[in-house]
């Protein structure tokens, strides 16, 4: 019984092999959706200029389109829900949502949308519009990574980047900056799942 099925199984395996290795037509860029479970967006800011306060944003969504043959056609977009700020202190988080800081009822999202991409050693240099607190500024990110991995039938790709910015550049009230330093560092480690 088993022997009778062997040729057809073999043929199927051969077909699968050819299907996998045969040159594909010039494919469009691979599109990935932001995987919230395996990604994290953290930040830290100086406190009294002697230490660092760490926090994170728990909710975000985004997508990337990666064109390996023509990286300039790649795109990256990320939307962070400002309301999901989490510094491990509920009262402080409430305070950060208020108009003196993120003003999350007025500016519910922090967004990044790429405008140009170029390959660099170990990743991509991505320039784009970063919008926070209703103010949009051009920023350039060094996206490191880009390795692909297929896990349980889903192709994944991951990037990491760091971004330094001044809150006062984004319309945060200078008088409310107080003991927290003006400069904040944002760390993004994101994994994308191929759609």
């Amino acid at each position, binding site marked *: 019984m088993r022997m009778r099925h062997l040729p057809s199984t073999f043929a199927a395996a051969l077909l699968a092999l050819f299907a996998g290795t045969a040159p594909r037509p010039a494919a469009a860029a691979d599109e990935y959706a932001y995987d919230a479970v395996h990604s994290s967006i953290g930040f830290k800011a100086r*406190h*009294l200029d002697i230490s660092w306060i760490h926090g994170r944003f728990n909710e975000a969504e985004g997508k990337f389109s990666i064109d390996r043959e023509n990286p300039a056609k790649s795109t990256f977009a990320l939307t962070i829900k400002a309301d999901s700020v989490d510094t491990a*202190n509920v*009262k*402080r988080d*409430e*305070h950060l*949502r*208020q*108009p*003196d800081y993120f*003003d*999350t*009822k*007025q*500016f*519910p999202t922090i967004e990044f949308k790429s405008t140009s991409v170029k390959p660099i050693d170990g990743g991509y240099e991505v320039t784009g519009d970063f919008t926070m607190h*209703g103010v949009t500024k051009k920023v350039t990110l060094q996206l490191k990574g880009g390795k692909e991995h297929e896990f349980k039938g889903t192709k994944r790709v991951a990037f990491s980047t760091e971004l330094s910015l001044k809150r006062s550049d984004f*319309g945060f*009230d200078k*008088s*409310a900056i*107080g*003991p*927290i330093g003006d400069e904040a560092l944002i760390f993004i480690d994101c994994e994308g799942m191929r759609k």
Partner: protein
Amino acid sequence: MPDPLLYGEAFALAGFVSAALTLLLSRVASRSPGGRPEQPGPRRVGPFALLFGVSAGFAAGCWLLRLPTTWTPASALDRYLTFVFPLAVGVELLATRCRDSIRVAWLLRGGLALAAGRILLHGSVYLQGPHREWTSGETAALLMGSAVALVSVWWLLLALGRRAGEATVTLSLSMTLLGSGLAIMLEGYLRGGTAPLPLAAAILGGTFVAARASRPTAPPAVAIGDPLPVPAHGVAATPAALDGVLGLGVVGLASTLFLSHFFAGLSTGSAVALLSAPLWGWLAEYLPLRWRHGAGGLAMRLLLVAFPIAAVLLLAMREFVKETLPLLTIASL
């Protein structure tokens, strides 16, 4: 970080500018048109002088506090200072001009009350975006409810002003604005809490000039709460001169509470208690007549108004000490 010294300076500047400009404009206005010499009789502190004086005082205080923060008013507070307050000044100027047509005045005030809520909520998650929080019906109901509440308080305060003396009501409003500012600051919204302070000071400055003007130059002395007498000479406040100032105060109070509630989490109870606090002056109208007159009557009315303000402040202080103070002193923000 809170800067009490700056708040004090802004308060003093707003009060001074308001009083000085009101007095100056009253003197200028008392001259007859065409540069003729002053007519005999009292100089009048009119509604226009008061409106301009109080507005300028408020603007001066805001300038010192660096409010609004941006000239592209993206936040609700900036929209209040850039659009709603100037609109209120315009409406009160028009209402003063068409004093004979009370319906037109209230139509304008009603329109402002409706527009204010929409302006303050503009661009927020309540009205737009993929995660819009309210439906069109909810938005309409809320804006209408807020407008009705504002107009009701406004009307009741004007009516109280006619009975108890306008200066009593503007003083009550000034006190409520101060209390609201403190309550909002204790809630954690520092910038929003500073905005009512210069308005309170400007109203005090204008009221002071109007009250001084209303004081007769000869005995018997009459207190603020009494009907405004017109002296034979000196400076006098025209009847209902403080109507416009009262309007600015009510719109300022309602707007600040509205935006603090929807954008900074000020509780509904606190917002309602503070908005209705000046109305507690009505209770004095049911006291025996002898308690309602003179300085005693004024003190009684202010005491009644202070009661709900103190209750809100006590609760806010308790919450602040329990929740926020440890954050500032130990864990620190």
